[in-house]
């Protein structure tokens, strides 16, 4: 729970700061963002590569994992689309 809130804090701080600096001169954050995304994805890959547990689990459960994942994703999308229509969300 504390961890979840720790992620909300920088986001909210960013939104507030951005909101108050709305009419100030713009700085281009595109490059910083992209570089940081790459660092994040790299470290995500690193945790996967360094997890012997995960690497040894994957081949053992291959087919079952593929079937469950495919259906999980399919139903998530179908449900979301249905509910979106029901509440008329754009």
């Amino acid at each position: 729970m504390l961890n979840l809130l720790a992620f909300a804090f920088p986001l909210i701080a960013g939104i507030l700061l951005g909101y108050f600096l709305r009419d100030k001169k713009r700085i281009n954050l595109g490059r910083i963002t992209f570089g940081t995304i790459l660092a994040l994805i790299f470290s995500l890959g690193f945790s996967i590569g360094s997890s012997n547990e995960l690497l040894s689990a994957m081949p053992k459960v291959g087919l079952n994992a593929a079937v469950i994942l495919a259906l999980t994703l399919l139903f998530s999308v179908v449900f979301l689309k249905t509910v979106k229509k029901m509440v008329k969300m754009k």
Partner: protein
Amino acid sequence: MIKYIVLALVFGVAAGYSNNNFGNFFANSLVSDYLFNFSLILLLFVMGFSFGVDKEATVKLKRAGLKILVVPFAVGLGSILGGLVGGLILGINVFASMAVSAGFGWYTLAGPLVGQLFGAEFGALGLTVNFLRELLTITTISLTVRIDKYVPIAFGGATTMDTTLPVIVRYCGSEALITAFSSGFALSLTAPFAITAIATLFH
């Protein structure tokens, strides 16, 4: 852009694997904890900033209003039902397969927790399914976003509040920030309870 992301992922896996299996050059936690958390916090701040500055994004969000709360609800329910159907097709314990799907992509939680409640074999399944969910969300985003800008959010499940959020915002636009974050947040809060509740039904 997606090719750089996939490259970063591949290099990351190779580096992590090498560091683990060909001599520990540095502590794994340097990258998987410190670099990860640092870049994530910086990104959340920067994305929040871009959202706050963007006048259109706030208007769009206001128009959607409380409706965005249905997103995690639909994604969560859909995921668990997908697990149920998957379990029935495969002829395995359906409670376990539902619990696996109720990880919503949070593999570091689903692996150990499902393992504890349903045994090591299902723990491995929970780890793999949820890890692949996160991986697929990132690698297929340039395709899924074309179907509907909400599809990547449905794919991402609980991960849309952290690891997959920057990629989603990049592809779906600034206005997707709050929808994706709040959906990921709600699903992250729900995942441990959902897995435990499904296990209680089973036992």
